[in-house]
Structure formats: C-alpha cells, structure tokens
C-alpha cells in the first residue's frame, strides 16, 4: 500500500494542533444565557456560570463565581471524577506562577455549594496565600442541577499593580481551566475570558 506522505504529515499536524487548542481553550464557564457546549475536560465540571468582581477602593476586594451551575450530567460526573474534585480561585497566572504573585492575600471565602472545607495556600513561595480551594462534597445528597451556587473570595490588596485572576476545576490533581479576569493597577477589572462570563466586559487578550 502506498502512503501519501504529505497527507499523513497534514493529518498528524492537525491532530497535534487540535490537542494544543483543547488544552488552551478548555473553558466551559459561560455567560448563563449562552447555550451549553460539549464538555472538554472532566465530567464533573460546572456547566456554566458568571464571574463577579467588586472593588471597593476604600475597603473590600471581592471576586469569584457569583453564578456557577452544574447540570445533571455534571453532578453525576462529580461522583465519578475520581478523588478530590475542587474549585480553585487563583490570584496569579497558573501557567506562569511567578506572574502577579503576592498582589492579593486570601482572607475569607463564602461558598453555597456542598463542600467539605475550604483552604488557602501559598502557591508562589512568597509567604502569601494567593489561592482559595473549595473541596467539593461529591458524595453529598444536596447537590441540585440548575441551582445557582456562589463562590466568592474576600482578598487583602498588597501591591497595587495590574494582574489577573483565574478559575479552575480540579480532580485527581488535574486542572481544567474555567476562565480568568484581568485588572489594572486600581484593581478595576478590565476584561473576562471567556467573553460574556464577566457581563459588560470583553474577552481578555491572550
């Protein structure tokens, strides 16, 4: 059998590019009015949601997921995603954890989804806890499909510099990125990705 080498090379290249794009664009949190798209990551990921950012220049900095909705497939998936499904609220750039570190410190976390506890951690090595993790109670009978769950973090501002925050679903230590927001040196949010997850703000440049 003759092999068409240019065709084979093309197929391999397309497959490689597809794999890369799945890794980079695996965002499933969407503005609630958008139609759901097929999941690309874990089965227990939330189906859609909406980000939240509240900057009181004199006091609180609050951000997180004001709307986070699982459908029935996702809730069933939570129970089958292996061990330790979690939500991560990261005040730095996860792909490059030396960027935007130590600019905010975790202080409080509010959660209305069934959970087994919440903890903060220093992810950058600067003795500042810049991440909140919510340990989801996958076995809880109180999960409800279509319910708007809230997950909001209160943060102490340390350095007034531009930066970004990220949202991730994790199971078995494997991350599925849900999106991000970027902010300027006044801690005013400038954009949200995926576009529409931060109402009124366009998608962030890469």
């Amino acid at each position, binding site marked *: 059998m003759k092999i068409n080498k240019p065709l084979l090379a093309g197929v391999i290249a397309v497959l490689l590019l597809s794999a890369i794009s799945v890794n980079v664009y695996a965002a499933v949190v969407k503005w609630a009015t958008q139609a759901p798209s097929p999941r690309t990551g874990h089965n227990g990921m939330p189906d859609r949601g909406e980000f939240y950012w509240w900057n009181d220049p004199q006091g609180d900095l609050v951000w997180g997921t004001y709307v986070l909705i699982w459908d029935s497939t996702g809730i069933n998936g939570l129970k089958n995603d292996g061990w330790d499904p979690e939500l991560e609220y990261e005040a730095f750039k996860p792909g490059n954890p030396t960027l935007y570190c130590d600019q905010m410190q975790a*202080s409080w976390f509010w959660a209305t989804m069934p959970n087994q506890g919440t903890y903060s951690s220093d992810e950058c*090595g600067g003795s500042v806890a810049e991440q909140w993790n919510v340990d989801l109670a996958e076995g*809880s009978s*109180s999960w409800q499909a279509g319910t708007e769950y809230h997950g909001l973090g*209160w943060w102490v501002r340390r350095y007034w510099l531009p930066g970004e925050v990220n949202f991730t679903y994790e199971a078995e230590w494997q991350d599925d990125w849900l999106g991000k927001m970027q902010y300027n040196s006044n801690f005013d949010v400038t954009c949200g990705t995926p576009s529409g997850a931060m109402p009124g703000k366009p998608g962030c440049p890469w």
Partner: protein
Amino acid sequence: MFRSKKLLWLIACSIMVGLAFVLVAQVSASMPRAMRAMDGGLWRYSVERNHNTGAVLAKISVDFADPSVAIAYKQLNQQYASSMIRKSLDQVQDVDVTLTFTSPLSWEDIVAIREETGLSIQLYTFAALNEKGEKGSLTGVAEKDSSVDMRKAIEIITSQGYRLQGVMMVRGKIPNTPDGLGKLMTDKRIYLIDLMANRVREDLLERGNLGDGLYVHTPSPFWDMDWN
C-alpha cells in the same frame, strides 16, 4: 550499500526510542499523582509537590456519604487519639486537628474550648442559613492568637442574605495531653476529632517524601449535618 542501510535503520530506531522516551515522560508528567490507601482502604490520601515553593500538599479523602465508612473513620480517629495521649507521657507535642461539631457552636463556646484545652486555630468555618433554609459556609483565616474578626464574618454573611448559625468546623493544633486532646475527646458537642493529618505526616516521613513544607487538607462532613 548494506552498511549505509544498516546505519539508516540504526538512526531510525534511535529516533523512535528517543520519541518513545519523550512520549512516556510527557504522559507521566500529566498522569494523576499517586494515591495511597490507608487502613484497608477506609480512607486515602494523595500528594502533590508545588514545584514553585517545594512545599507538599496532601489531600485526605473519606467517603462520608457511606454511613459505615463515617462510623469506622470516627472510631479509627478515637483509637488514634488515645494512642497519641499515651505518647504524651514520653513526648508532649502539638498535633494537627480538624474538629467538626455536632451542631453550630457560638463564638463564646469556641473561645471557652480554646481556653480550656490549649487549642490554637488556623481556620474557622461558619455555618449560615437563609430564609429558605439554604446553606452557606464562610471560612476565615485566623490571626496568630487564634482570634477572628467576628464583626466582619457577620457583615459578610448578612450581605449575602443569610444569618449566622455558628461555627461548624475549625482547623488547628492541640497538645496531645489528657488536658488538651483528652478533654476534646469527652466533649459531646464535637462530632469528629480528625487527626489523620498526623498519620499522613508520619507516613510521608517514613517514605522520605516530606517536602520543604507540608500542608494536609482534611475533609469534614459538616455540610450534610443539621445546622439548626
């Protein structure tokens, strides 16, 4: 001609072996970290090392939704607590503890427990309910003296349309003495005294896997308990 063909085959095979190594390395890097089953699979833990800080994060998993597992896990912790108190005759030490309460405790109750037992607290989880009876949890990082800004806690809970019920869970350290851990064991308001973070630490030490710092996350069944 024969020799050059042989050489070509050798080069091709070397490339294939090299590619295979790269592939295996990539797959290994993206594979889930090892999980370790403990006490016949009653509970388990998994670890991940933070490449940026060198610290190790360990997460404990327990299937609290299975009543037989929940009871057995509670008994396991009671036995372990007794052995730790016996150890205090040789060596008094502060051990990691996560307390889940039977129902929400008032702030005054928590302060009394702290003063009576020497408990130092790193994290508090408050329980809150709204008018529909829906649940919300608020976790706060404690100050070095184990205190927390209660005014702020109430302000946040109220701003979300909920009312504070009390404290359902705390994480911290307790002396392994009869007056410390021993007193906690006789307190009927405590549903679970979870000490398995110490078992994880011992296990990792035995296996030589302790990093530059270790944090063990211990799950709590607080969400599905009665908050009224």
